[in-house]
C-alpha cells in the first residue's frame, strides 16, 4: 500500500503529460524554425472541436477521432503556413507575434460563431472512465491513457527527428537553409511539414485536453501561458526538455497545492522564474 501522496503525484504526472502533448509542437516550431507561433493553442482548439463534433454529432468513437483531430489541425496549419506564416519566416519576432495573436483572435470568434460560447461536453468511452486500483491507489484510467499517449508521442518524435531521413532533412534545413537546398532538400516542404507536425500534435493535445480541462472558444488563450512556460522551461527545440519541464510543472503544481495550498497559484510561476534564472536557456536548452 502506498501513501495517498503517490496518487496525487500520479495525477500531477498525467496533467504534466497533457501539457507536454499540448506544448511539444510549439517547442519544435519555435526551436527548430525560430517562429513565434502564439496561435499554437488555436490549432489545439481545432483538434478539440473536431473531436467534440465527431463524437457528439456523428457518433464516432472517441479514439477514432484522435487521428482526425491531428489531421485537421495539421491541414489547417499547412494552409495558413502557405498563405501567411511563410512570408514572415525572416520577419522580426514582433511581427510574428502580431500575426499569430491576430490569428488567435480570429480563432476565438470563429469558434464562438460556429459552436457557441458554451462549454463542450464530451463522453469518453467506457474503457477510459473510472479508475483502477493499484497498490491501494486509485489511478484514473483516462490519466493512464494520457501518460501512454505522451510516451508514444515522445518516442515517435525522438525517433522521427533523430533517426529518419525526414529528421535529418529538418535538422539540415534549420542549420543552413542554403546548404540544405544545395543538397537537394526541399526546404519549403520540410518547413511546411514540420509546421504541420507541430500543429497536428497541438490538435491531438486539444482533443485529449477536453476531458481534463474542458473546451470553449477561449481555449486559444487559456492554455497559452502554460504552453509557453513548458516550452521555455524545457528549452527550445528540445523534446526531452519539454517532457521534463511538463513533468516538473505538473508535479510541482500538484505537490505544492497538496502541501502548501496557500502557495497554490504562485508555484508554477515561481518554478518557472527560478529555473530560468538558473538556466536561461531552459533545462535542456542549447543556447
Amino acid at each position, binding site marked *: 500500500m502506498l501513501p495517498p501522496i503517490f496518487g496525487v503525484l500520479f495525477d500531477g504526472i498525467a496533467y504534466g503529460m497533457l501539457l507536454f502533448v499540448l506544448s511539444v509542437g510549439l517547442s519544435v516550431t519555435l526551436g527548430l524554425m525560430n517562429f513565434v507561433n502564439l496561435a499554437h493553442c488555436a490549432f489545439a482548439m481545432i483538434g478539440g472541436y473536431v473531436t467534440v463534433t465527431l463524437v457528439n454529432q456523428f457518433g464516432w468513437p472517441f479514439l477514432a477521432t484522435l487521428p482526425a483531430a491531428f489531421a485537421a489541425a495539421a491541414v489547417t496549419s499547412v494552409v495558413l503556413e502557405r498563405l501567411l506564416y511563410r512570408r514572415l519566416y525572416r520577419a522580426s519576432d514582433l511581427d510574428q507575434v502580431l500575426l499569430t495573436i491576430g490569428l488567435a483572435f480570429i480563432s476565438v470568434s470563429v469558434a464562438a460563431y460556429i459552436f457557441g460560447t458554451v*462549454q463542450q461536453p464530451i463522453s469518453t468511452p467506457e474503457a477510459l472512465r*473510472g479508475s483502477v486500483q493499484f497498490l491501494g491507489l486509485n489511478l484514473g484510467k483516462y490519466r493512464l491513457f494520457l501518460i501512454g499517449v505522451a510516451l508514444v508521442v515522445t518516442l515517435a518524435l525522438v525517433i522521427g527527428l533523430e533517426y529518419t531521413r525526414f529528421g535529418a532533412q529538418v535538422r539540415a534545413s534549420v542549420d543552413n537553409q542554403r546548404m540544405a537546398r544545395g543538397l537537394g532538400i526541399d526546404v519549403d516542404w520540410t518547413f511546411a511539414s514540420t509546421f504541420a507536425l507541430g500543429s497536428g500534435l497541438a490538435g491531438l493535445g486539444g482533443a485529449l485536453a477536453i476531458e481534463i480541462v*474542458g473546451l*470553449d472558444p477561449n481555449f486559444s488563450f487559456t492554455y497559452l501561458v502554460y504552453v509557453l512556460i513548458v516550452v521555455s522551461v524545457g528549452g527550445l527545440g528540445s523534446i526531452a526538455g519539454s517532457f521534463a519541464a511538463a513533468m516538473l510543472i505538473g508535479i510541482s503544481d500538484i505537490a505544492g497545492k*497538496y502541501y502548501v495550498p496557500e502557495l497554490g*497559484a504562485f508555484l508554477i510561476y515561481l518554478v518557472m522564474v527560478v529555473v530560468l534564472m538558473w538556466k536561461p536557456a531552459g533545462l535542456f536548452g542549447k543556447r
Partner: protein
Amino acid sequence: MKHMMYAGTAMLAAALLPGAAQAQGTVKIGVISAYSGQFADTATQIDNGIKLYMKQHGDTVAGKKIEIIRKDTGGPNPDVAKRLAQELVVRDQADILAGFTLTPEALGAASVSEEAKKLMVVMNAATGIITSRSPYIVRTSFTVGQVADTLGKWAATKGGAKKVYTMVSDFGPGIDAEKFFQNAFKSAGGEIAGSVRMPVANPDFSAFVQRAKDLNPESIFVFVPGGAQPAALGKAFAERGMDPKKINILSTGEPVDETAVKALGELALGRISGWHYDYNLKNKANAEFVKAFNAEFKRNPDFFAVGGYDGMHLIYEALKKSGGKTDGDSLLAASKELKWDSPRGPVSIDPATREMIQTIYIRKVEKVGSEIVNVEFDKVENVKGM
C-alpha cells in the same frame, strides 16, 4: 486648453438639453456585459433570456418601444464598465442600465447610475455589496450569501451534517460563499473541520481533493465558478475515491450545473446543492420557459438566462406601473412593489434592499429515466438577499 473645455461644456449643454425630449417614443436599455472573453457564455445566456422575454412580450411597453444597446466589457473590468455606462447615458441617452455579468462591472457602473439617476438592473453579478453602491440598483439574480447561508442552515439542521470541510475558489464570490456557509453552519450547531481556498485559474483539483480526503470529513462544501472547473472538480472527487453517495458533497448551483452534470454522468449522482433555479424545476412557468428557450436557442436555460429574463420582466412591469416614465426615481418606486411568478417560482423585490426574495431549492443529482439531473427534494421559501 481651458478655453477649449469651456467651449466644449457650452456645446454639450446645448446638445444635451433637448436630450430627454428626443427619447420620447423609445426606452433605451443599455446592456453592459462580458460578451467576449472568458465569461462570454454567461453573457450569452443572459442575453438569450433578454431576447426570449422580448420575443414573448413584444417590444412595446406602456406605449414605448424598447430598444436594447449592447456593450461589451470583455471581462471583469470596472473601468471599462464605468466608461460604457457613461457613454450609454451621455451618448446613447439610455434610460436604463442592465446586464452585468460580473461583480466588478456592476461596481464600476454603480456610480454612473447614482449620478445620472438611472435605474440599473443587475441580472447576474452576485456579490452582496453591489446594491449598496447606488440607490438605483435592483438585482434580479441572487446573492451568494442568500444561497450559501440557506444551505449552511439547512445542512446543519435538516441535512444532518455535523462536521464540514469547505473548499472554495480564492476570489470574491468564493470567499463570500465560505463566509456565509461557515457562519450559518456554525450558528446552527455544526462544526467546521477545516477549509481551503483554491486558485481561481485551477485546471486540476486532485491535490485539494486529496487534502480533504486525508481529513476524512463526513461532509464537504464546495464552491467553484461555472465553466470547465465544476466537471474537473467532480472528476477529481471520483478519481480520489470520494463517492457523493457516501460522503455528503454540498455546494451552490454552479458546481453541479448542466455542463458539469452532463460531463460527470453517474459520477455526479448524490451531489446535494442549494440553488434558486434549474431548468428541471417543476412549475408551470418554468415548463413554458424551458420549452420556449429550447425552441429559440437549442439549449436549456440556466440561472444566467433566468436572471436576464426576470430582469426584463422587472423592466417591463416597472414601465407599465410608472406609465412609461423612464426617470430613475419613478422606475425604482415601481420596481420596489413588484411581485411575480418567475420560472424560478414566486419572487418579489425586497423594497428595503432591492434584492430578490425567492425560494432556495435543495436538490440532489439523480437519474430520471435516462437523464441525470438535479431534482429538488426540499426548499426554503421567501429567502431574502444578503
